[in-house]
């Protein structure tokens, strides 16, 4: 690990200001992903801004009938929250499908959204990787690519976003609240937060340098059945090959997002309208532009079959 200086932020605005003025600075919250990457010197911040003392660990009702989740709410606490369990069961289900008990106790809501890919070539500093070292090439294309993305990819990168929680938030149409370095605030729909890799896979979100996520907003509850189905290589504590998050109403209408297949949680609103017509019709729209490497072709079938299981479970 490279040496770094450290401060405990005393206010949100001060944290964003320091981070915006120092390109070598990074926020640290739970630290479960950042420290892992710092040990490997994939992340090499010269300054860490500890944001754990900013009082952003509350879950509150909004005047619109939704929920405001503080950026620092731990994954365990979010999954266990009574309102979340009752009204946003999909979110609880996605959270407990991810990581381990120990990690969920540390990992935060904003950190979960901003975690980096688990592409093995991103982690292997001996291999080219456009995300880690822009312009060096993509080792996954033509390499071992069974876990990689099948849609929204580019010639520069086929990495996936690893979060389960983000799939639930995308299904629920959450909004991200943030503060920029100049102190201004903005709201970002979750659909717009994560970018596709394109020619700049190293830029993963639309956040500006120093911009700090303060909360995640959930709109009013949708009702319906909340189902998160995750398919992975072992029964627990593994990243998704494919995951499906869905909210399905008694009449068969609903919405669906898919994890494990793209650089961001994958949702196509036009596919939602196909849900009453079944898994094949829905996945045909969801994956209309899918492009596999061959090794990950199975994911295209797996999305349809997992979605089929979710639709069946919603009827049951």
């Amino acid at each position, binding site marked *: *690990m*490279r*040496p*770094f*200086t*450290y*401060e405990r932020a005393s206010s949100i605005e001060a944290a964003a200001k*320091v981070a915006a*003025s*120092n390109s*070598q*600075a990074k926020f*640290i919250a739970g*630290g*479960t992903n950042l*420290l*892992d990457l710092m*040990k490997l010197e994939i992340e*090499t911040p*010269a*300054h*860490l801004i*500890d944001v*754990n003392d900013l009082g952003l660990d509350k879950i509150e009702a909004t005047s619109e009938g939704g929920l405001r989740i503080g950026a620092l709410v731990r994954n*365990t606490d979010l*999954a*266990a929250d009574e309102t979340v*369990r*009752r009204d946003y*069961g999909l979110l*609880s*289900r996605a959270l*407990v*499908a991810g*990581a*381990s*008990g*120990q*990690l969920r*106790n*540390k990992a935060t809501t904003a950190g979960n959204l901003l975690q980096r890919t688990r592409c093995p070539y991103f982690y292997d500093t001996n291999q080219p990787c456009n995300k880690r070292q822009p312009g060096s090439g993509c080792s996954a294309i033509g390499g071992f690519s069974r876990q990689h993305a099948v849609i929204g990819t580019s010639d520069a990168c086929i990495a996936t976003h690893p979060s389960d929680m983000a799939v639930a938030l995308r299904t629920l149409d959450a909004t991200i609240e943030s503060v920029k370095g100049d102190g201004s605030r903005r709201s970002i729909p979750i659909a717009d937060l994560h970018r596709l890799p394109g020619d700049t896979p190293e830029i993963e979100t639309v956040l500006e340098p120093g911009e700090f996520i303060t909360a995640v907003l959930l709109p009013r509850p949708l009702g319906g059945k909340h189902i998160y189905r995750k398919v992975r290589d072992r*029964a*627990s*504590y593994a990243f998704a090959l494919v995951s499906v998050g869905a909210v399905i109403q008694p009449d068969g209408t609903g919405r669906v997002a898919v994890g494990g297949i793209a650089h961001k949680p994958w949702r196509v609103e036009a596919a939602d309208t196909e849900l009453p017509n079944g898994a094949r019709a829905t996945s045909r729209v969801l994956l209309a532009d899918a492009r596999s490497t061959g090794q990950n072709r199975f994911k295209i079938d797996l999305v349809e079959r997992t979605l089929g299981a979710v639709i069946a479970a919603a009827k049951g």
Partner: protein
Amino acid sequence: MHPTQLEISRRDLLISSAATVAAIGIAGGAAAQASRNEMAYTTKLTFTVNEEGRELDVDNRTTLLDALREHLHLTGTKKGCDHGQCGACTVIIDGRRINSCLTLAIMHEGDAITTIEGLGKPDDLHPMQAAFVKHDGFQCGYCTPGQICSSVAMLAEIQANIPSHVTDNLNAEVAITPVEIRERMSGNICRCGAYSNIVDAIIEVAGTKA
């Protein structure tokens, strides 16, 4: 407190490789415009470990795991993968289990940390330690301190009604079942494969608690 000449020379002394010196150069430049704290590559901290107040002055890079093992010589907590994948480093902080390898010591100012040494002593075992012995919940023993710390805090999570991936009904009380225990212990890997005996040990402790 402004950075003194003494602090700077100590820092220079600590740092030997050319690559590291280069990194310091960048950090120093950025930090020169910022406040005093940001100049330090070491930090003083005070926390409680196994109910004993401890004071340390550590390199900022020191993980909690290394602080416990290398600075406080509490070597019961094990370093397995050092990347949060195996659970051998599990300790309990303010009642919650975490991977001590994936957190910085300096982020735990004022915290109360419990390690395997704080759960019980050889002549006064914690019920979970006694149950692991009774049920032979280990072979080589390397993952055992992490398994025991994890299982003690895991049962508290069930009692606090925190759901898991295998919980059927999110709105009912979570039951203590072998399936729940297996799912919740998935962050603790045992290469010897003592899992079934570990579950038996935990079930026994859970039973006597209920």
